[in-house]
């Protein structure tokens, strides 16, 4: 059972890594606003493309005019 002398400190190191990651995310402001990001991810990618196309279309039309 001497493996415990390695495994137990290892478990503690893992916990410390997790704590480090948590501190990093808190300081990065990831917990500052809990409601908006959930909405943001719902429509980000797909809609940007649409808007881009519209912009291009508008620009094209402007050129024609």
């Amino acid at each position, binding site marked *: *059972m001497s493996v415990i002398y390695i495994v137990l400190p290892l478990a503690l190191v893992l916990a410390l890594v997790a704590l480090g990651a*948590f501190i990093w995310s808190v300081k990065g402001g990831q917990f500052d*606003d809990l409601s908006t990001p959930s909405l943001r991810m719902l*429509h980000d990618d797909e809609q940007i493309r649409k808007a881009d196309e519209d912009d291009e279309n508008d620009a094209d039309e402007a050129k024609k005019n």
Partner: protein
Amino acid sequence: MVSSQTDNQQTKSSAKPVACDHCGLPVPRGLINESADKQFCCNGCKTVYEVIHACGLDPYYSIRQRAEDTGQLKKQKASTSSRKYSEFDDDKFYELYCQRLDQLRAITETESQEDMDETSGGRFAIDFYLEGVHCAACVWLIEKLPMVCDGVLEARLNLGKSLVRITWDRDTVELSKVARMLDSLGYASHPAQGSEARLIRTREDHKFLIRIGAAAVCAGNTMLIAFALYAGMFSWMEDQHRELFRWLSLAIGVVALAWPGQIFLRGAWAAIRTKTPHLDLPIAVALVAGTIAGAAHTFRGVGEIYFDSLSVLILLLLVGRWFQHRQQRNADDAVQLLFSLTPRSARLVDCKEQDESNITQLFDNSECEVREVPIEGINENDIVEVRAGGVFSVDGDVFAGKSSVNEAILTGESRMRDLVVGDHVCAGTVNESATVWVKVRQAGEGTRIGKLMQFVEKFAREKSPSVALADRIAGYFVVIVIAIATLTWLSWMFIDSTVATEHAIALLIVACPCALGLATPLTIASGIGKAAKLNILVKGGSALEKLAKPGRIYLDKTGTITKGQTTLRSFSTTSTQNKSFTDTQLKAAILLIEQQSSHHIAKAFVEAFCADDSIVDASYDLKLGEVEQLPEGGIVAEINNKQIVIGAKRFIESRNITTNTNVDEYVNSIINEGLTCVVIAADNKITAVAGFGDGIRNDSADAITQLKQLGWQVGILSGDGQEIVDEVAQHVGLNDRNTKDEIKGGMSPEDKLNVVKDHEQSDALTVMVGDGVNDAAALAAADVGIAVNGGAEASLSAADIYLAQPGLTGIVELLVLAKRTTKIIRKNLLISLSYNVIAVLLAAFGLINPLVAAVLMPISSLTVISLAVGGIWIGGKRRL
């Protein structure tokens, strides 16, 4: 757009409402444009739709639709203004609200650092508080700003707070243009006040969260170790492993106490130093006793270690506190952001010539220009322009122009005061009817309102903090527990001196009021959360606790019981009816005419008559001719080729329209009631007389009856004249003999403060409800100050609670909620104390062992948590 046109046709036949193509609200029938593809309920929606479409942001509507389908959307009209926001480009403004972000630029560009400091350009960031943000689609739209506005680098919206952070490049775009773009999308922007304070608080939040994280790591690991140790008790375990586990447990336990647990030790120390009881004290006693005993047992190699329970305890208590802290912060932030809505700019008049004697003439010759500048950039003797409907931002004298001013916010007086050249005006009051120019005497902190604010701040600081119920009990608790512990120790010394210390320490540990420490913050947090759902912002938990017991409640009149604006109170046609118009036609005619004016009386007429569909319908059949507003105080207009004159009695007489005794009598009776009288004449004959006053809110009478039923003594403190106050009191059912003394008119801010302070000395609770600056001092001095919707900045900062909805119904809801919250806190106190009594008794007789403690603690915690959270939300629905 075939579909909307068929909609229109249907409207004509079956009156089916047409939905606005921007906001989805029904379009008023008068605004339906049958030839257009799209229908809009107002100009704001139309403008916003056009801008969105022109920028290619149409996907907004599909996102909006999705939000609407999932029921997350509250429909609201978009409103735009033609504000120029030019004050946003002022250097003073940059200094006050903008942060410079130049580091990035220095890397990407080859310019040297010195060159950059010389230019005024560069990257900046600002927090704007936006009006009109309401759904997921707004997030999308606002964050697309960099795509439609060159030079904007990023826009990040916090939906909960309506706060957007904009990063932009000053070389490419001016901030005023960004603000105008936001405005044209329907979001009026205000620079957010208190950015620095918010930053500090965000850092505090981060610290708190990290503390919780650390506590969780400690708790998780000690629990794992404890699990192994408990398992080892029943099965075989090598001694060296057991020792290792115990030493590791000690190490983690000490970390837990020294890092996340420190907050309790500090709290306890502060409680001892200031000699105020605090819940931290018994908690700290248990934590320290447990750690010392555990450490001693680890060194000796025998006996219980308590580190698993202790670190879990620290985690749970921190989590409970975090919930309360966050709810209070949310309310506080929301109130803070409301400050941002108060105008921070003034329209400064710059004249090339120093001779400003005839300003209007100078304007005609365009020798003067008007610039918007931040208030901070205004100096004495500057000339400031204030438009109709605008707020005076400085103290000063009217220099040119003629208008009327609404000083309700300062004096509580609901009647308008006429302004002529030379009159003094105060910052914070509202210019009602026409543009005036003011010569500045004082700006900023030197103004009367600024001085009042300082007074209020001083008062709020001096107010002694109240001791929460749980903390008061904790005071006795410590004394009793330590007494029993000593007694236990002494008794066991006679029986078996080897175990005496152990039993006494076990008692100290199990007596830790963990359920209490967890339940109170959780209950208050759910109470505040529930209040926020009801549009009531509670800034501190103790206010809720205090409101549970009925006492004395003083209401301000103007803006609290009443609407605080002119409304039509009586309208009657005279007996000598003119046959040119029927009653409805006459009202329709007045509606049409008054829509052309911005006078407060005109607005009141429009508001009153617009609500009646038959009048609106009748107005479509009338033909409005020329409308002339005369400076003497009246309007002359033509309807269906007949002349209609609306104005004060004097004005009517001056136009050679004869009155009779009947009319005179009626006019006098209206004036005697404290109302403003307006006479209407058609075809040179007086046809109607109208009375105007401050309209009582619809819910006031009901709310006051309910307040009385709840056992509160209701009084009115108003700056208005006694006879007006009496009339209002009569309307809301406060005219019986008991309350007669508490209906007080003609009160100055100092009088109000004194009334509140006098009652402060008696034991009964005093609550002040108000909205104006004139109430601010009393709000700060009262046990609980409640500011109502539409209030001035000063009253917001002075009050403990802010009602974000108009009317008094919110107060009744608040009081019921406060009662329920306190009831649950008490229930929880009882439950957790009885658990403690059982545990302490067991410990005193030496019957406690870690297993019993391990079972008792989670059970008691679970009971109180479920009561705290469930009691407010589930029970709340039933009663409210």
